[in-house]
């Protein structure tokens, strides 16, 4: 019984951690390349799930109907990823690129501004007169996301530990994405250019790298991951709200910092830690203290290991 409960929390924690990881990678990539805490990223993620819900509403899919639903899920993943990638790229183009020369704080404020705009758009979006948004009467209310992926227990009805198709969906989507991203960053020409730009933008430019394009590509990739995350988050938790970007962004950014910001394996590790700590705290302590514990651990880790779990300890150049 004790062990069952522990395993259950472990599975929940890992699944949530994987979702956080996808968002955290978006933060860490952007930070690695232009040293910006991209505040809008969490809200981008929120809009991705609103798009997914809208598509479901337009298609009239609201339950699991076998094979064709797989197609529906793939369609959602594709649409949200393309949408978030495009939106992230646009935000970079409009709100960040013109400010790149004017200092980190200006960039940060611009990101906060972009975040506010996206939150507001999410509020308006929730007011669409569609059935999935409950007719759009209460725009600010959380929206139910149809349970497309069934919640049946794969280990059998009488097993105390639950592994559901939802958990498989999370792993099945996130793992290939992470492998693919690692491949892009370490093996392709674009990845090499990204690493070079992150290391030293001026030198990269001197070597003939079009850093503007590389930065744009980074936002595209990070945004796409956020889009994927938004769909699996919605399918996993079955409720979305225009305010969820803040919480998700906070968790993901904390994960990125915890793992050592700028490092992608670090972001994944940090996200898994955050997911596990959340699940264990929810299970063994009181839910209302979970945030305190997460941030308490973050503060402690930063005090004793200031560059994160997997971050490299950079000496200041004199």
């Amino acid at each position, binding site marked *: 019984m004790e062990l069952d409960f522990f395993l259950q929390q472990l599975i929940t924690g890992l699944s949530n951690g994987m979702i956080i990881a996808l968002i955290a990678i978006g933060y860490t990539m952007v930070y690695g390349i232009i040293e910006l805490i991209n505040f809008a990223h969490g809200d981008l993620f929120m809009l991705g799930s609103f798009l997914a819900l809208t598509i479901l509403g337009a298609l009239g899919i609201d339950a699991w109907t076998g094979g064709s639903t797989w197609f529906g899920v793939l369609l959602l993943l594709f649409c949200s990823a393309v949408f978030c990638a495009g939106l992230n790229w646009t935000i970079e183009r409009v709100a960040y690129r013109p400010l790149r020369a004017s200092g980190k704080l200006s960039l940060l404020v611009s990101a906060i*501004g972009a975040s506010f705009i996206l939150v507001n758009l999410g509020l308006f979006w929730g007011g669409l007169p569609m059935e999935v948004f409950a007719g759009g009467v209460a725009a600010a209310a959380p929206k139910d996301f149809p349970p497309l992926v069934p919640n049946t227990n794969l280990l059998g009805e009488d097993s105390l530990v639950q592994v559901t198709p939802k958990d498989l969906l999370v792993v099945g989507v996130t793992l290939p994405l992470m492998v693919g991203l690692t491949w892009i960053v370490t093996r392709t020409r674009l990845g090499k250019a990204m690493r070079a730009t992150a290391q030293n933008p001026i030198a990269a430019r001197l070597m003939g790298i079009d850093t503007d394009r590389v930065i744009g590509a980074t936002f595209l990739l990070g945004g796409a991951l956020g889009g994927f995350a938004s769909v699996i988050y919605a399918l996993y938790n079955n409720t979305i709200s225009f305010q969820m970007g803040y919480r998700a962004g906070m968790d993901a950014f904390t994960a990125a910092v915890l793992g050592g910001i700028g490092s992608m394996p670090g972001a994944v590790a940090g996200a898994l830690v955050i997911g596990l700590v959340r699940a264990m705290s929810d299970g063994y302590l009181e839910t209302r203290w979970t945030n*305190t514990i997460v941030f308490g651990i973050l503060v402690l880790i930063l005090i004793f290991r*200031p560059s994160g779990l997997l971050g490299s300890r950079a000496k200041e150049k004199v």
Partner: protein
Amino acid sequence: MRPRMNPILIFFAVAAALPMFFGATGLFYDAFQSIFVFALVGLGLNIITGFTGMLNLGMAAFMAIGAYAFAILTCDIYPFQVGFWSGLLLSGFIGALAGFLIGAPTLGLSGDYLAIVTMGFGEITLDVLKNLEAITKGTQGINPLPRPTIGGWTIELQDERSWYYLLLLILGVAVLFVRRLERSRTGRAWLSIREDALASQCMGIPPKRTRMIAFATGSAVAAVGGALFAALLSSTGEPNSYDFQVSILVLCIIIVGGMGSVAGTLVGAAVMVGMNAIVLVKLADLFGSREQGASSNVLASPNNWKFLIFGLALILVVRVKPEGLVPPRLEGESGAQPPAPPKSQSGAAAQGAGA
């Protein structure tokens, strides 16, 4: 020194004269009381982020600490009941202590890590306030709080004009204090650390202790702001009145106004809080939809456009005037000052934070 004082003097002259053009009560007073309180909190953040270059994303927590310290020390359901003025002073000290306790282990962290720690501290504070209901009264907030007395004369809650001048006076004292501080040995050390910590260390300025003093001083000023925020309402309000959005509002105040500029903080508070408390409310009146908050169409209520307008304004300000509306003058420009510490990057004084 002279040209530098001007924007500040204009601010206070205008603020002192304004009530003549308005009635004895109303929207105007609510808005300006918030402007003064947030200007005070902004001054605190300006010491930490503007002068010393440490990005702090948890200013609301220090406001909350000031508000709750003030409430617990003065409210008659607790044993202390020290009275308004002692409560105000003590809440400043408690704010400084909190700043010191948070700062001591974390100020060695580099810019963005410190930012995330302060953000985390803000979340922790919020959770503690919500969860320790036995002490903080949860969402009810602690009330009622005492009214200030000056020589036997008590300022009643309804007496908005007196509150207005009281806050203006306290803000004035705070501005004088911060301006003197900026020009003191400590203040110069702050600016020097912001521009180049390594070089300052070589010149004999201990970076950690200097940062700590800035952090504690800024927290104290913000805590006094928080105490006044609570005193104005005669209640701490619910813990969510001190959430992350408040921290961001304060940050936006000093960035829009001009990092490291006292005059900028005042102008920034007037613009940001004024937009929130006057323009949006007026717009809502104009559309006549304030009463029906749950109107069937989200687009109909101007209040629902708040974040869109706020966000656009932020992006526009940093795009058009990245150094802020009232940028600080570089040291030495006024002639009376010795030359600035060398080796600042081109025009970096306006945005040297976070390095």
